[in-house]
């Protein structure tokens, strides 16, 4: 499970370290209780795409006190998967795109334009082109 922080306040020096210690303790306790992989919850995902994406407003899923969890839009995930372009992402995309009205390379490009910033597209240009080539090649 990957998550993005929506508020930067959590990183203020006054309480960030305390926050992270509490968070890590909680994640470890859940991992032990539920026999999960130690990395089951990844809250560093922003480090990978910090200057490349436009994060859409998600749907509020749960509130736990001050912690509010939003679920991101499926089309945003599709855009991220095209950009990542690893084998497993393309396999996922083939299934996910079939569930949408996206049938052409141009439509997929519009999806990318909505969520991947120009700088992000430029940096990942080669892998995006390869992903689109494969996803929309004539059979």
């Amino acid at each position, binding site marked *: 499970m990957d998550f993005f922080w929506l508020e930067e306040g959590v990183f203020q020096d006054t309480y960030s370290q305390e926050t992270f210690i509490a968070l890590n303790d909680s994640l470890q306790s859940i991992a*032990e209780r539920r026999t999960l992989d*130690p990395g089951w919850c990844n809250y560093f995902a922003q480090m990978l795409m910090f200057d490349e994406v436009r994060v859409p407003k998600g749907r509020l899923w749960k509130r736990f006190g001050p912690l509010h969890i939003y679920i991101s839009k499926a089309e945003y995930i599709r855009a991220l998967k095209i950009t990542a372009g690893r084998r497993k992402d393309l396999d996922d995309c*083939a299934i996910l795109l079939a569930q949408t009205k996206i049938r052409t390379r141009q439509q997929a490009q519009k999806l990318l334009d909505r969520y991947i910033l120009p700088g992000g597209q430029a940096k990942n240009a080669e892998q995006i082109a390869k992903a689109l080539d494969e996803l929309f090649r004539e059979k």
Partner: protein
Amino acid sequence: MTFEMLKALAQAYSDQQKRPLLLPSKIQTMARAYNDICTGEDPWTSLGNFTNAWYGYGKHMRSDLIKDPLTRPEQETEHTRHWGAFCAASVDYLCDLYHQPCPEWARDPYYILETPWWYTLHPENQAERAAVQKTAPAPFARRNIFCTNRLFQNKYEMYAWIQEALALGFTNLSEIHTYARKKEISLHGA
């Protein structure tokens, strides 16, 4: 995202890495990953779990993650043959990349496919075949598997390279990302 936020996240990641190591009750070796595939698990879920072990919690015990040979299923199918070869190729590839001795079983000619596996979305398409013939990493091509070279790119190394860039004094977000991407390309080739 601000530079301060990135720095705080990188610091939190570094702190998390220093915590006492927690191993899961079930360590995902390659043999286990293949067994999961043969019993119906999605191949990339099984390999993803293996990747988490290889790059994450089991990084200090990599040889243990790959030493056991794959258990062949009673009834081989094209699916199990393909993925057996893919697991063997992955071990060979990762051992080469991270300077680990490659276990004997992974070099067994049994894992060389008799007919090429064009692992793309449109295997009949000639342009796609030509593309993967160029990009398939050698351990895969040797086993007659033709696929992309974007297979094992992962967040763990990216986090480490971002931290490296911060330690080197980079303060521009875009430059930090470019530094990490260049490292990724130099290691994985894409």
